[in-house]
């Protein structure tokens, strides 16, 4: 003890001399050395990122990250905090940090006591093992630089790193590198996406280990473009995956979709056994069913009326279902458990089916790179005995979804079927403009002062009804009416009637809405005239033209077709002074028409249609798309004028 303090004294004594020579401590990432092109449009700049994935064995990986980020303003302050995720299958070896001022002088080091440990409860799971270590190095004055270093040891080799150093908008990258070290018997699989020229993998040997290395330099900040793909689909990315892996003693190969599917199938095999009493009940339920589809329908009704979704995600339980017998006795489970249970029920009804992995609520998976990209499970029922080959898809976590319907959450994407022969990539249903429809018919009764009452009937089908289905099933009528009031694009109104009713007989999910309104300001009186906007609720806003050149392709959310008919009942003593000229637009994006005419009985009828059958267009089409939207917007705002007849 005494010796060490003496030693400390001596070394302290040396310091002033060193400082005098060097003119101060070596600065860390001073802001002056930052290229102006990287500051442009950036809230923060990654100065250095050095990420390493060390494959220790078939079942263990070690991920090490060192990152220094200069925070330029308040909007970039989130980069001064660091969350390191861990769970039952992984642990954080360390989390270190430091903060430097604009000149690169140390402000302070992160202390162990400054690091907090939280449960990352998602708010809807009954139980989850997700936890985080959190450090906060935010500073009052900009710019400043934070550095973090951490290591995570994982016993879950199913997931390797997806390296994406430019992970957000308005974040620039000065320099970033990624290395994977792996034994020769565990070769790395990887996929490079959007890498700039010269950034491709460099391979080398380091002792027994094979080394794969990537480096990126000087990536200017980017912004997500309107109606474009999400940033994660545009920025430089290296996705990695194992060839073979092992989780909790369950080994698998990942060189093909077949292999991943095989592993998942084997992991869950034998968990679809039902108690005999339940099997007998299902058999009785479908005994007199005339065909396969009716059997599926009765089983799905049973599932929806007797189970509910409860999420429990602990360790291997993230991939392995609880047995069907448990669901049968408790009536709840997560997506795996309910799909597996429904598969067991269908088996008892003599209908074979397969669980299928999907990536829900996000862009589709990268099909050319077999790896675990999934977050949800649905059930796929091939109709073998039908006259033509068909497939029924079942969302087993919802108690309301119609038989066979995959909405915007799971539709129009790839799914990995889990079959005894392994995984098989298939497509879930896609819904086009013929299915996603909104048809509205309105009667508006105008009075001489310009106020009006209106009754609107709207029929929505397919993806157009998804949101309204949630509203109808999730909230009571009082709350539904409130939500609708908040969403109506009107500045002044009262709702006199509101109801949502689903049409069970329709082939595709359908919801009919009845909406009664009083509109104190439907018409604007001015002297002898009243001005009216016949397009009551279907105005489509214009799109702004980008400042620079469009960088990314156009990705529209879904195909659809809208049709509106508004009949305006004019009070006595008024006649039409002017009507908008009809508009008809036919483009590669879609077709639009709007027409106002006076009917024989004096009613004014407005008819508008908009049909958008396609969703993807090249980036060079963007100016034409903006022009199309501008014309629609102008036509949607066209007014008609009524004038008081001389009396």
């Amino acid at each position, binding site marked *: 003890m005494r010796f060490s303090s003496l030693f400390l004294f001596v070394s302290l004594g040396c310091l002033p001399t060193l400082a005098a020579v060097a003119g101060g401590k070596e600065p860390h990432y001073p802001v002056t050395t930052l290229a102006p092109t990287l500051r442009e449009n950036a809230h923060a700049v990654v100065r250095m990122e050095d990420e390493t994935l060390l494959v220790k064995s078939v079942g263990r990986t070690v991920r090490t990250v060192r990152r220094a980020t200069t925070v330029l303003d308040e*909007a970039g302050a989130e980069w001064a905090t660091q969350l390191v995720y861990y769970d039952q299958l992984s642990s954080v070896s360390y989390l270190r940090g430091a903060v430097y001022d604009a000149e690169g002088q140390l402000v302070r080091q992160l202390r162990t006591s400054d690091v907090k440990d*939280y*449960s990352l409860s998602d708010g809807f799971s*009954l139980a989850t093992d997700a936890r985080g270590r959190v450090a906060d190095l935010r500073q009052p004055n900009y710019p400043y630089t934070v550095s973090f270093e951490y290591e995570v040891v994982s016993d879950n080799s199913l997931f390797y790193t997806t390296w994406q150093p430019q992970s957000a908008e308005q974040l620039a990258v000065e320099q970033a590198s990624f290395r994977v070290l792996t034994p020769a018997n565990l070769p790395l699989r990887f996929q490079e996406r959007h890498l700039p020229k010269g950034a491709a993998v460099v391979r080398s040997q380091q002792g027994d280990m094979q080394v794969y290395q990537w480096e990126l330099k000087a990536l200017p900040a980017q912004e997500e473009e309107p109606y474009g793909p999400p940033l994660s689909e545009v920025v430089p990315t290296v996705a990695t995956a194992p060839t073979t892996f092992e989780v909790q003693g369950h080994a698998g190969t990942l060189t093909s979709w077949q292999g991943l599917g095989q592993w998942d199938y084997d992991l869950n095999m034998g968990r679809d056994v039902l108690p005999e009493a339940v099997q007998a009940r299902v058999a009785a339920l479908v005994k007199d069913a005339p065909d396969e589809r009716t059997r599926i329908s009765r089983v799905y009704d049973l599932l929806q*009326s007797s189970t*509910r979704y409860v999420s429990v995600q602990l360790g291997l339980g993230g991939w392995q279902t609880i047995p069907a017998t448990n669901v049968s006795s*408790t009536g709840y489970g997560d997506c795996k458990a309910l799909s597996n249970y429904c598969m067991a029920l269908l088996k008892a009804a003599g209908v074979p089916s397969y669980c299928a992995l999907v990536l829900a609520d996000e862009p589709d998976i990268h099909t050319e790179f077999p790896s675990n990209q999934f977050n949800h499970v649905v059930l796929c029922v091939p109709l073998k005995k039908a006259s033509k080959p068909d497939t029924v898809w079942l969302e087993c976590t919802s108690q309301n979804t119609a038989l066979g319907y995959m909405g915007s959450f799971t539709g129009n994407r790839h799914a990995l079927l889990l079959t005894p022969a392994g995984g098989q990539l298939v497509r879930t249903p896609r819904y086009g403009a013929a299915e996603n429809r909104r048809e509205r018919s309105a009667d508006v009764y105008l009075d001489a002062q310009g106020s009006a009452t209106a009754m609107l009937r709207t029929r929505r089908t397919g993806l157009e009804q998804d949101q309204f289905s949630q509203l109808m099933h999730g909230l009571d009528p009082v709350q539904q009416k409130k939500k609708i009031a908040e969403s109506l694009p009107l500045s002044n109104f009262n709702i006199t009637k509101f109801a949502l009713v689903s049409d069970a007989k329709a082939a595709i999910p359908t919801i009919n809405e009845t909406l009664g309104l009083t509109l104190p*300001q439907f018409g604007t009186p001015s002297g002898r005239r009243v*001005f009216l906007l016949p397009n009551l609720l279907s105005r489509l806003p214009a799109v*702004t033209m980008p400042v620079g050149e469009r960088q990314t392709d156009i990705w529209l959310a879904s195909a659809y077709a809208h049709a509106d008919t508004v009949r305006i009942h004019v009070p006595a003593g008024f006649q039409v002074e002017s009507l908008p000229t009809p508009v008809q637009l036919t483009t590669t994006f879609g077709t639009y028409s709007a027409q106002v005419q006076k009917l024989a009985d004096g009613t004014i009828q407005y008819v508008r249609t908009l049909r958008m059958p396609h969703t993807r267009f090249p980036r060079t089409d963007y100016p034409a798309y903006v022009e199309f939207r501008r014309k629609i917007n102008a036509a949607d705002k066209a007014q008609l004028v009524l004038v008081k007849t001389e009396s």
Partner: protein
Amino acid sequence: MFRYLGSACLLFIACTTICVVQAQKLKDPIQFGTVGAADFAAMAPVSQADSAAPAEILCDFGKSRIEGAREKFQVVFERVTRIRILRKAGYDWATVQVPLYVKDNSTEELQKLKGMTYNLVGGDVMKDKLDISKAGFKEVIDKNHRLYSFTLPNVREGSIIEFSYTIKSDFLFNLQDWQFQHDIPVRWSEYRVVIPPFYRYKQTVRGYLPFALEESQVVPYSTSYSEDARDSFGNSFGNSGHSASLSGQALQVRWAVKNAPAFREEPYMTSASNYRRSVDFELAGYDFSRNGNEYHDLTGTWEKITKSLQEEELFGVLLTQNGPLTAEAQLLLKTITGAAERAAAVLALVQQRVKYNGQERIYASQSFRKTCEQHLGNSSDLNLLLVQTLRSAGLDANPILLSTRRHGLVQTDLPELSQFNYVVAHVALPDKSDLLLDATEPLAPAGLLPERCLNGQGRLLANTGRWVPLKPTKRYMQFTTAQFTMNDKGGLQGKMHLEYDGYAGLETRKQILELGEQGYQTQFTRRWSDWHFTGPLTMTELQDPTKILKADVALTLPEPEAPAPLLYLPLAQTLGQFTNPFKHEERQYPVDFSTLHDYLRMVTLTLPANYTVQERPTNLVLTLPDNGGRFTYNITQSTPGTLQIVSRLQLLKSVYTPDEYTALREFYSRAIAKHGEMLVLQRK
């Protein structure tokens, strides 16, 4: 005015009470496990609005009593709850989360958890028991918080679920509070608290809904308490010491609410806890003496709270120590004479040094030195440092305790520290006026408290403490002037000048900080979507929050059509679009803005030479009753070729009662209609 929404009183029974009439033992309103087929019978909804409720609480019954234990007393809280699940949307009510608190060696423990689901199948009641080993989970949230979650089996539409549990708590300071209203209707909610003679509690009752029952009575009370045996050094060596049985009388207080409709939040509300019926408690004092004359008052008065805070390590003691910013503060003392100016300079100094981490606290988390080293701290870290630095700069500065808007309104007749969650700084200026300062918000100048602090009154912790109103010193003020010239096709060209003062300045500066200047500009152009911006939005005084924020922009409105004998201009195009913030017809609770509002717009319009005005809107003055608001709209034609439109909308109160709501909504509706009116020009 609206009815006062809370009340406080002291709950205790004096030990010396000799002659009390013993009450009948109260029957519990619910027994766990006694659901029968009759309980499934259809019932009329609690209210019309609840006719399609997703679920309803049939009975929620809680009891708290204080019991002796080994070397301590504990609060024993028992709860039995019965819920009927009516629709699938109500399934979430079958999953229950019980938060538990731990600190040092003191804990809250969940015990005796039971749960049952009842389904009526063909006239028979089927029971499914909760299996805790499979459906119960305890999670460590952080150092001080645990979460116990469980979910009930076989829940369907029509199921009745039931659960009961006991929490044994070492935290005597707060009894378990009780909330009578929930997001679903409640048919019966009852809470009983038994207070033994040696403890006194302060209770706070909040909300609007009337109690069906509110009564207290004296009940027999007994408990046993054991002391550990100790050696001569006072070290405990096990539970072989003597135990004592305490018996006597206790005060039982009972509250119940019947048929509470679902509680629904409304826009422009402060914390929902201000509106929901609830009761909570804080320990006031104790007396363990035989004859009841050794009462130890734990809270008692605001003066005592002040004194105890002054003795706290992470509050008052901090203020007595030498601060890290003293040297700089003393320099300011030498260089700035005016007290208000000096206070503003100290505020800027602290804001420069320390960033707010977003945590609303009354206690500091660390020493001032560490706060300055980390450059990061909670509201108390920052504002106690501010108080201390203000003092070093020769100012008469003290802390003010307050409760933020989301934390609830402080009741000044209830001296309870737990009512507060935030600290700001107070400076007594030489002219005896109050100056309030908050270092958490670098965009707010001295004297302008962030909106979250504008909530009733704050308690000044000075030698003579007092209540200081937390009123906004400025309005939310937007001022727009614009000059437009119209061409003979109806197109407009011109420039616009905008000013944001008071809370509008704070709000706009915050938006610019969060979105960046470019992002803000994009958002701004979206509000004027029909216009083309011919130049950038130029901001002035963005950096200096003491100045009015100004913005200038040049813009054109494309001509709608070819030259026509008549040109129509909706004047809303030039005044700016706005929508009625009050979308709903009904209002249950007061509209609570934090500030007064003032929107002033002045537009000068130069008309094309070959046109004359054929129709123009008339002038209008609207007022709200009780001087609650005013809208004026004036249009004048100063020369044949120019029109001037002046529109001003003022909300002159920050709180409007539900009775005033209809008028307020109509006021907006008419103002919007006036803005929407048309100018018609005719070719000469």
